[in-house]
């Protein structure tokens, strides 16, 4: 069970959060312009990184805010959290 620092509420137990997968996959602004291949890239294809990954989390049972997290998926170490729209802190 992780101990996660919500950028708004502070340190909380993992049970208050939901994970939302890889971060910084922007929804295409003009989906109709995309080929089936390109749309599938957005929809399904994931880096699924073993190592340092940028991902989204939601403080579902707290402030309900989404935020980003940098976490090493090989050992579950959380490196940083930052708000949506913010640049990832340089690691």
């Amino acid at each position, binding site marked *: *069970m992780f*101990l996660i620092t919500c950028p708004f509420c502070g340190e909380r137990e993992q049970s208050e959060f939901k994970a*939302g997968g890889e971060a910084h996959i922007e*929804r*295409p602004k003009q989906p*109709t312009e*995309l080929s089936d291949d390109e749309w599938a890239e957005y929809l399904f294809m994931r880096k699924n990184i073993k190592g340092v990954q940028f991902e989204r989390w939601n403080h579902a049972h707290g402030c309900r*805010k989404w935020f980003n997290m940098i976490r090493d998926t090989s050992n579950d170490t959380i490196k940083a959290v930052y708000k*949506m*729209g913010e640049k990832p802190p340089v690691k």
Partner: protein
Amino acid sequence: MLKNLRVTTSKYIDKTSRVSFKFNGKAYFGYKGDTLASALLANDVHLVGRSFKYHRPRGIMTSGSEEPNAIVQVNNNTALTEPNVRATELEIYHGLEATSQNCWPSVNFDIGGINNFLSPLLPAGFYYKTFMWPANFWEKYEYVIRHSAGLGKSPTEPDPDIYDHKYIHCDVLVIGAGISGIMAAKTAAKNNLKTLLLDEKNEIGGSTIFQNSKHVKINDQNSSTWLENEIKELRNIENLEIKTRTSVAAYHGYNYLLARENLTDHLPKNEKNKKIRQRLLKIRAKKVIVATGSLERPLVFNNNDRPGIMLSSAVKKYADYYGVATGQKNIFFTNNDTAYESAISLNKKGIKVEAIIDIREQSNTAFTKEAEDLGIKVYRSYTVVNTEGYKKINKITIMELSSNGQSFANQEKIELDCDCLAITGGWTPAVHLFTQSGGKLKFREKDQVFIPDLYPSDQISIGSSNGDFELDDIIKNSTKSLKEFLNIKETEFDNLEINCPKDKEIRNIWLLPSDKVLGKTKPFVDYQNDATAKDIKLALREGFKSIEHVKRYTTTGMGTDQGKLGNMHALGIIADTAGIKVGELGTTTFRPPYTPLTFGTMVGRNVGEYFDAFRRTPMNDWHIENKAEFENVGQWKRAWYYPKKDETMHDAVQRESKAARYSAGILDASTLGKIDIQGTDSSEFLNRVYTNAWSKLAIGKCRYGLMLNEDGMVYDDGVTTRLDENHYIMTTTTGGAANVLSKLEDYLQTEWPELDVYLSSVTDHYATASVCGPNSKKILNKIIPDLDLSDESFPHMSFKNAKIDNIKCRVMRISFTGEHSYEINVQANFGKSIWEKCMDAGQEFKITPYGTETMHLLRAEKGFIIVGQDTDGTMTPIDLQMDWIVSKKKYDFIGKRSLYRSDTMKEDRKQLVGLITDNPSEVLEEGAQIVANTNATPVAMLGHVTSSYYSPNLNKSIALAVVRGGKNMMGQKLIIAMENKNINVTIVDPVFFDKENVRLNA
């Protein structure tokens, strides 16, 4: 002959408090403070159980949680029974009944013992090589195998005991209250840190507390005396909580630990009642200090498993702590000095020590000298090659070792009589929790131990769990580590004067040589699972090289003791056989829990009514009072139907449906999700999340919306009402409410942060009563006389604010049944009252409450879908023949792009259609498959029935279904292929009733 072997007094045994108990049906007594093991030993009972595979007689080997052999069934044949309880951990209480397990008819005469003679045919992995013929016989072989395997018996009745959970957040957690743990806890707490000290035993102090050697001193005091004073002080420190009988089970990441606190297992039966039996502590510690001590290693030699063969430290503890002599003719067998220390202690209590067999060529410390001075015969450079005595050891054979330790100096055999053989092979740090936390070990060649190396979180290991075995090392190194770890300058242990014998040596021979060929011997490595050194060698011979392979092939370390005693020997024997170093081999993974954890403890109070939350509507009490049957919908309890006396569900639903169509019905729709949407971009937001257009919806109007996933599949639906220019209220399905809100928030916060929109759940704020039927208008008129209900003022798909008795409410004229109907939304605490008011007002029209089943039937007559029943995550709106709701004009909405993929555009996808049966009274089974031709194998399936009812309003069976290419198959005949028959059906339009929607405005 029954002997009492309680030879000395002990301050930990309360001799004034006799405790009677039964073992294998026979009455015994012990004292308060005894474990079942110490009490049995005091009564000269050594034979306690039978081993897993060969059913060999086994006795008590240890004095703690590492016990592999002495496991018993407690309270057999009662609801309180428990299998596989370690006699060494179980504190006796009045009324305790324990029995041996894995034996039949009795532990003294066990038919299964025949396996011992068949053992040449049962080497490691024998079952992989046989039982394959005839091919269909495996289940018969398996039946026999299963019945001879297993240990104790599962309870067969529900558990009457109560369990609980407790979250604890502390600055420092200290695991293990031996001398180093006590020093750590005291230091932390005195430095203003909120500290928790846990120990699995009933008393704290570890093994130092019964240390009595004159050679071991702290500040010139006996170390046990010194520690007793420390413990006295400890009890008065603020910030420090001490929990005994508490075993840390698991050490997870981020210093999250689980511990089991045992609260009543040691109490007499009449005192256990209604108290919490065990509590799971969920501990989040800023810092963790692991002081879990070390486990004594046995020695691996032929027949090293007989009752009466015990760990040397256990023999000492039974004598020093419990005051019990484990034998009257004791022999020690050792590779280190601790056996001498134990032998001296026994000797001083008048317990006879016949000899010490030492595999070392020499040793010269204060202990060895004292032992020899006391006249104990020492055989140096000797090893035990065999033991005798079926149910208890009575003789050993020893031989002199050659200098390399792998063979013998000569062929001379010496036989020695004994009734207890105390063995020690050195010590293994208890690094289980450390490695569970992700810690990495390193191997110390000198004494062949794995010790902590890299810490994955804020923690340290101290004491013998860190590989410090001597008192001076323990105190000095622990003090130093604590200062660094807690960032403090000094501790009260900085200047202790410590005396203890030096220059101790150990000689490690993982598998001691035998005078027989290995194949004829039984040198056990894993006692419980009967894995021997020759099994390990067989595995290696067969190509199983990895330690994990060996472990799995031989089952070494897979018993209930998780191989706490034998794992190191397994590694050592593998390393020796393969000619590599133990350190290069690595360890096997230690998996949680450290000691087995009761399911009840894991679950706590999350059983029975607290297994999962119940959600109830404001009208729930009324439904109960009116004998509704309930249906689980997610966590909600929804009224399903309201049977009158003797009515079946079918009868009730037919009655309810007719009432709703021909007079008036009322439904509790409070469970539907309701999301309050405000902000200047609310219309744009709805445009993006629903498939249809919202900008032009007039204030006061309602509209049905369909929401897709980004993959184009229908996700949720519901009616959304425009309350004001920038204010909407959205309804969702009952089951989808939470997910829809979460998904919408996700889009708002991450994809469209520029939109000025706020979402708030108001699901629980409103109670919703839906009144439908031709008389609904009249009923509404009675309740809200001042509301203009004319079609002009209040048409279908519109809403009005209203007041009922000074209470504000919202009334929507929307319909899921096809009837003229109203949804009254009122603040929840008035919900039941509104409902009753509707019932009163509707009495003259025989207003009939209806449940979800009738609601389903009525909407099916109208061809309205239920998301999750008529859709399954693979249906697009086009598949549902709801093209009308998919805006062609809108540039984008969630899921739009996916509708234009090559497969989602195919004409022959499954599409929603209606079905009628040739025989109008035959109701189809929901889930039944639809085919065109039943002759082929496999039968090609075209789709399935999603909803099916007998319609009282149409007097025939109707169904909704999805059928491949169905929308172009109107009027075609198909077959419902049931197990015993085929049912002929015709594809029809899914709207069965009132296609022109006349009734909406009736």
